[in-house]
């Protein structure tokens, strides 16, 4: 990158691409060409910057200018003002949500201040389709170090010392997993990268593969060296076309550079990587189900043991790690286990990528040190709750995680604390809820997902989750009874206790944690048939305040079921037996005469 004076980084993540970031890049190139600047200024389509809320993002180096919500039409202005005249385009700069002041340097953005980027180190910095850029940022140095200076056992010891734990959900110590697979004797072993990211809202694995695919390939090769495997497989869902494309380019480039294939770096080590496509089943993130899917069988889990480390793909010892886990490996080798272990808490080392979503100002992808508090994430990095509403809870760990309330805002986040709080790390989904979210409806929403994604193999998950969902449905439409709350809890406990795989063992978590923390809300639904958040439509009661009603007939004319009657210029009236609670009258009334209770 040294030969250029200036770099224009355009986000090429899936979100920004959908907002025409490729056209933005093309426009930059065209304009720069017109000014004869193509030799001095480089335009790079990078991976995701994480700040998806304000995409498409354009970052200009070396002055670190961070432009948000850039359109292809804005390009001319940026080139003419910023590039030519050296004046930043104010209106496109990120504005501090509180002071409303434009921030010229990305380093001044709260969104990035508390982040430490290890797994995402290259996302938003390099062109993921150019291996030279990866190599330019120490890429493949770790593989070189391992092959030339370290024995497999030494590398495994380093990973163990670093304290790295699986980032896919289980949190199993990565070094130990490698060691177990290394110790299994076999003529053939496999390294599998689990890129079957399935949590709704989570997209860290996709971002890494789109923004920095070589970091995963390098780590897989290191893993292969350690466990004694010459074959790596990336199991990736077919819904990630961009990630697949970049991964394919990366694999080909790595082969051309002799970083994959036979006799890598002249060290006599052979390793190559193939891609396997998944059809997008959440349960295939479970490693035994994933392996069955790769074998061409139905993607459903089997009982462990045997663990994949003993009997995995094609019955051979297989080490399965998640994308984010792999992305940490080269950095640990380069910077040392001690450095990595210095970040985080006692039993959770390093950083974790979270996908921030829901009622939060800065929706996006963040990487933070373990031990950070929810408050820091939500208020400092996330910019607080949308529309200035009140924080109610945050759902972590994806569909099988739990909801954490205000009382956990200052709890340091790590694997163990999240479990102790009734949730889990999962793959790092974080959905923020405000006071307009009904917790019963939220539990129902998550259960709907697991219900859809259950493979149906074991009875408690197949039928139990269906029954849980039915009870929740009953409650949200006002047919719930007080004994249903006990029933929910008892059934949830049995499902957790008896299900075959992690999906069923955790699917009742949203139910149990909302029952624990928001019991009053459940109680209001079943006893007084009220939804305090005003989300459960069936529980709402629409009426017209005769004092305020002017008899304009707007509600009467818009009611889809003819439930409203009344003379012109006289108060109107809603027939409750006909009302379907669609809310149109409420929206249409200009005099606030429609009341909701």
């Amino acid at each position, binding site marked *: 990158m040294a030969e250029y004076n200036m770099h224009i980084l355009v986000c090429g993540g899936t979100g920004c691409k959908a907002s025409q970031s490729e056209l933005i890049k093309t426009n930059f190139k065209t304009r720069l060409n017109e000014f004869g600047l193509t030799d001095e200024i480089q335009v790079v389509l990078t991976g995701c910057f994480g700040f998806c809320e304000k995409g498409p993002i354009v970052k200009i180096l070396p002055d670190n200018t961070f432009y948000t919500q850039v359109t292809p039409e804005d390009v001319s202005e940026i080139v003419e003002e910023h590039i030519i005249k050296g004046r930043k385009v104010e209106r496109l700069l990120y504005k501090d949500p509180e002071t409303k002041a434009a921030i010229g340097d990305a380093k001044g953005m709260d969104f990035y201040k508390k982040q430490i980027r290890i797994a995402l180190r290259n996302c938003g910095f390099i062109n993921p389709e150019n291996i030279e850029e990866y190599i330019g940022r120490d890429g493949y140095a770790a593989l070189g170090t391992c092959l030339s200076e370290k024995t497999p056992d030494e590398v495994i010891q380093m990973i163990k010392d670093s304290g790295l734990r699986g980032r896919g959900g289980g949190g199993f110590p990565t070094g130990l997993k490698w060691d177990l697979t290394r110790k299994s004797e076999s003529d053939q072993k496999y390294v599998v990268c689990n890129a079957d990211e399935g949590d709704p809202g989570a997209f860290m694995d996709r971002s890494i593969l789109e923004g920095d695919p070589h970091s995963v390939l390098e780590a897989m090769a290191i893993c292969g060296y350690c466990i004694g495997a010459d074959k790596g497989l990336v199991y990736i869902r077919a819904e990630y076309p961009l990630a697949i494309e970049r991964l394919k380019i990366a694999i080909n480039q790595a082969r051309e550079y002799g970083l994959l294939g036979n006799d890598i770096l002249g060290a006599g080590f052979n390793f190559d990587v193939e891609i396997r496509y998944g059809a997008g089943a959440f349960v295939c993130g479970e490693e035994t189900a994933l392996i069955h899917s790769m074998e061409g069988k139905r993607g459903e889990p089997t009982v462990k043991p045997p663990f994949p480390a003993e009997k995995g793909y094609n019955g051979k010892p297989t080490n399965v790690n998640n994308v984010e886990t792999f992305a940490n490996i080269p950095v640990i080798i380069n910077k040392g286990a001690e450095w990595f272990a210095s970040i985080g808490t006692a039993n959770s080392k390093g950083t974790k990528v979270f996908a921030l979503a829901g009622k939060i100002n800065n929706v996006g992808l963040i990487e933070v040190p373990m031990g950070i508090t929810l408050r820091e994430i939500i208020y400092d990095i996330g910019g607080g709750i949308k529309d200035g509403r009140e924080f109610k809870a945050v759902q972590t760990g994806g569909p099988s995680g739990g909801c954490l309330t205000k009382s956990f805002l200052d709890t340091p986040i790590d694997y163990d604390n999240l479990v102790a709080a009734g949730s889990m790390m999962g793959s790092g989904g974080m959905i923020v809820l405000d006071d307009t979210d009904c917790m019963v409806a939220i539990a129902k929403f998550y259960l709907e997902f697991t219900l859809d994604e259950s*493979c*149906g193999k074991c009875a408690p998950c197949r*039928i*139990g989750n*269906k029954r849980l969902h039915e009870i929740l449905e009953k409650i949200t439409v006002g047919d719930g009874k007080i004994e249903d709350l006990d029933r929910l809890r*008892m059934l949830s406990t049995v499902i957790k*206790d*008896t299900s075959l795989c992690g999906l069923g*063992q955790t699917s009742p978590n949203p139910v149990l944690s909302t029952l624990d923390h928001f019991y009053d809300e459940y109680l209001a639904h079943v006893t007084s048939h009220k939804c305090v958040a005003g989300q459960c439509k069936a529980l709402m009661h629409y009426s017209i305040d005769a004092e305020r009603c002017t008899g304009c007939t707007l509600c009467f004319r818009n009611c889809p079921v003819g439930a409203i009657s009344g003379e012109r210029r006289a108060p109107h009236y809603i027939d409750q037996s006909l009302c379907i609670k669609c809310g149109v009258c409420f929206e249409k009334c200009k005099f606030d005469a429609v009341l909701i209770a």
Partner: protein
Amino acid sequence: MEMINLTIDQKPVVVRKGTTVLKAASSIGIDIPTLCYMKLDDMNIENKPGGCRVCVVEVKGRRNLAPACCTEATEGMEISTHTIRVVNARRTVVELILSDHPADCLICAKSGNCELQDMAHHLGIRQIHYQGEQSMYREDTSPAIIREINKCIMCRRCETMCNDVQTVGVLSAVNRGFQAVVAPAFEMNLDHSVCTYCGQCVAVCPTGALTEVDETGAVIRALSDPTKTVIVQTAPAVRAALGEEFGMPAGTLVTGKMVAALRRLGFDHVFDTDFAADLTIMEEGTELLTRLSAYMAGDQNVKLPILTSCCPAWVKFFEHQFPEMKDIPSTARSPQQMFGSIAKTYFADKIGVKRENLVVVSIMPCLAKKYESSRPEFSVNGNPDVDFALTTRELAHLINLGNIDFKSLPNEEFDQPLGESTGAAVIFGTTGGVIEAAVRTAYEIFTGKPLPRIDFEELRGMDGLRKATIDFNGTPINIGIAHGLGNARKLLEDIQAGNSEFHAIEIMSCPGGCIGGGGQPYHHGDAEILKKRQRAIYSEDKNKTLRKSHENPYITKLYDEFLGAPMSEKAHHLLHTKYFDRS
């Protein structure tokens, strides 16, 4: 052998490494209930998906409950099988299964034989606390098997049989979550699939999800029709199992009582498929010798090994899976069809009844026989050679409908001329029997000498694949035996690759042969039952005066009066068939 020490319900137990908790418990008299689990001992058939979760137990130090059927016992394990946590979980799981299961037990084909019903009873379930929506699937009827998959509990036993044991690959889990069910690909109908109708799925289904097509009503109507003469034939394996339906121990031979019951049901003539089995040996044995002689004379075009063709599921299997080899199996029809063909020609003429007015009913241990009798090549002008093929289980229902106290029946004899048979015919009912019967006859015809011994122990047993070399007076004849279509596939692949060492191969689709057929009384996973039936078959053979098919005087008479000689033109027309490419 490494030994493992553990405690189960505070009782110490020592087991070999690799033993499951379920087995360890049962070794000290702790009977952990199971539902999806099934193991046929010594037959290499096991289904343990760990799916039903009924067998869960508490393991000290483990976060959740463990399925006993697929959890290996480890050193120092402390297991509790009936704590309140376990009992509550077990009952809840069964309640959940029941909540998604039609409650039509009173009229279910499986009532009384249903393992889910038994489980509910066993656990004392009186109430289903979690009621809700039930799965709704369409019913699928084929010539032999009915799939009522609203009753499927996803135990996957049928899948194990269809895929792992039979390698037919029709049944597998489809859909996800609450909609998950076992079905053919794309939920197509069974009769559009490559199903062989072997019926092993039906034999192991714990509920009424898979049952046979019930033809008892049609048989009752025929019996009550004064214009019809209704005759019946009974397959050899039926007599070794029918008693189980009436509470008699497995392995009780009930030939005489069965004949008496059929006579009381109103059949005009009670005949024996064994007669046709002897006839099959004459035809198939002659075919074997013809091919062998040509081969030995140096004919390069002759097809060897010859494969038996009595088993209709096996026939359908190779028509679908190995159509290029359809000229290798013997062209001899199965005993059921030979019987039908002779009955509706030779016998109908003899008693002066028109073909249309003669109804042939067969009692079979088999579901594929229903399909076989419906094959168009086995009918004349739309009139089938065999009108109805009932299973052993259906016969038991008929006997019940006839208010017959089966156990107190006297022993009666078959009618003649189609009721006489030899011991060679009886052993058709077990794996290895057809080829032993063929050897008994072929040897004597080939060598022109009497057999030095009749019992060929080397051809018997329960191993899925067996082989033996029989010395035909100086000429070694290599015999192969396979039961279970997965085993058959291995032999066929060898033939395909040109690596087969055999001159003749017997193939039976069902594990154990016909004694383990899909129409037999349910064995509920107890392989001992099959072994007892096998012993009963061999004992009937041993007690027969005539034990070689060519010695059956009525067979000799049939050839003299009607067919001429084995493989004659008439025999070809009536007793042989051709196969179709169904790939």
